[in-house]
């Protein structure tokens, strides 16, 4: 797959029961890859991956249907607080937190599942990781 972008789709009580994701896929003619989801009748959120070439159209299509689309960063690591211990590395199911060649802990945002996961946040002994959004 070519370069892709991860966004969070937030559904409300009003639109959660409509097949919006399927409609957008058909309308835009591009896959919307669902990485993780947390939903119930009250609404919820899905983390999806969209082909970078189609991202603008897809986001517009979701927003037209009343879905909130969040393209901000998912997890923020404060490198001044971080001591590169690695407590977050083994816990990350996506290998988004990993060691660099110089033993620094780095966050690869394109792998991160963000708010739908969040396992790393309370793992950090320095409280250097926080969820955004």
């Amino acid at each position, binding site marked *: 797959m070519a370069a892709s972008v991860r966004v969070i789709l937030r559904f409300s009580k009003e639109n959660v029961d409509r097949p919006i994701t399927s409609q957008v896929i058909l309308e835009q003619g591009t896959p919307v890859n669902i990485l993780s989801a947390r939903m119930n009748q009250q609404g919820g959120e899905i983390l999806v991956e969209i082909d970078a070439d189609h991202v603008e159209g897809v986001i517009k299509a979701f927003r037209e249907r009343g879905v909130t689309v969040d393209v901000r960063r998912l997890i923020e690591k404060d490198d001044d607080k971080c001591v590169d211990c690695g407590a977050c590395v083994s*816990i990350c199911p996506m290998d988004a937190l990993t060691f660099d060649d110089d033993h620094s802990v780095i966050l690869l945002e394109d792998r991160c599942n963000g708010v739908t996961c969040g396992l790393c946040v309370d793992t950090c002994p320095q409280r250097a990781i926080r969820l955004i959004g």
Partner: protein
Amino acid sequence: MNKGYQSLFKEGKDLNKKSSVERSARTIEEINEKIRNGDVQVLSVSEMKELVESSGVQVAFKDVDVITTGTFGAMCSSGAVINIGHADPPIKIEKAWINDVPVSHPGAAVDLYIGATQMSETQPFEYGGGHVIEDLIKGKEVELRATAYGTDCYPRTKLEVTLTKDDLNQFQMLNFRNGYQRYACATNGRDETIYTYMGKLLPKYRNSTYSGSGELNPLSNDPDYETIGLGTRIFLNGGVGYVIGEGTQHSPGNGFGTIMVKGDAKAMDPKFIRGATFTNYGTTLYNGIGIPIPILNEGIVHKVAVRDEDIYTNIVDYGVPRRDRPTLGTVNYKTLKSGRVTIDDRSVKVSSVSSLKKAYAISETLKEWIAEGRFYLTAPIERQPTDSVANPMRKPKGLAFVEDVVHDAVTCTEDEEIEEVARRLINRNINHLVVVDAEGKLSGIVTSWDVTKSIANGKGALSDFIVREVHSASLNEPLETALRRMTEHNISALPVTDGEGRVTGIVTSEDISKLLGGGRFG
């Protein structure tokens, strides 16, 4: 060389003198002379290992005077002694808090000890003694509160004052147990996430953690304590410190040696000392320790050539809340640093909770200090034990485990008549019946309340009101964890099962309460 410290002193051996037995040797005085002259040959411990591998022991001995080790990790038995000076009128402090963290008061009027694991009373589990020490080192202002009963010579009973490290007469790190030679690799076999001092451990061995810098660790490079002992000058948290003897739980006999250290905290660097918090465990302190190892003879070269693949540790199941946790295998530091270990025939992610990057930085910084003539070596004036093993505690008073309070469970099977079940509850004067299958395995639980309710409602079949999702306990489980599970799920009994799920007894909150009523576990 591998002698206990007592025999060593009987022989009156002086480490600072050339031994006539050694074919060739250098002394600490000679090395210090070279540091003074600016021509000392100092390598980081990693550079030394490479040199030994490429050029051999003899060349490495000839070319290198001293090497520098390093480690940076959470060390709970740490803290700082402070003296805050006398107020007017003076106070003999009975209780004190800094930034709401209780600071203990072990001695005279205004001496306090800031323990790393003491937690703030207003932000517990987030801010603690380790953070207070870090804040003071950073030059921040802290708020001290104290109370006292008042005496003729110390009339004051209350004190509130803002302090920085410049206001302290003494601010000395005094760490009882630091620099563990190696540590266990932690994982969790339970079916729930647990939070430990080794970090967050996911259920069913889904991750694992370890601590320590392996081949960079000071004690792993001097396992016979030839150069590290009382009086050894070290890098401590970015400042200068000293080894002041064996650490608590020093256990060199099984490869878990430790050291006790002190150092002037006013001169420490916040880059190398950090307060920390482990969720649901508490607060602690990351210390950075670097120890120079003088290359006094070829024997020492052999020892500092040790590699990660030679340093083994156990993989331990922290899911079992006992002193002797089950060992699931052994692993060396090379594998630990690779990021994957094998547990239960599966490849499991592993990462450190200490910092290898900082350990390298400490080793490099100490190397610079020595090369620049800012740090001189000292010989230990007393050796520490090389073969002792730390003992566990003598058996404490009272009862501690489920097996201490368990009694036989009265059971029934699913196909029994409800009247029969009701009779059994009454005859045996109990409230819980454990439902078992044909093999005696746990399949549910029935309470007297359930039976009463069903009779009142005219419902007939036992199977209609069996609770099938049952929480259970095991015989060797601490009473506290069993009690916690009952409180958490608002239940009053736990069937006790063996490894195969067969019912071996029952433990009730009533049993435990009776014991608690007479004092802590009787």
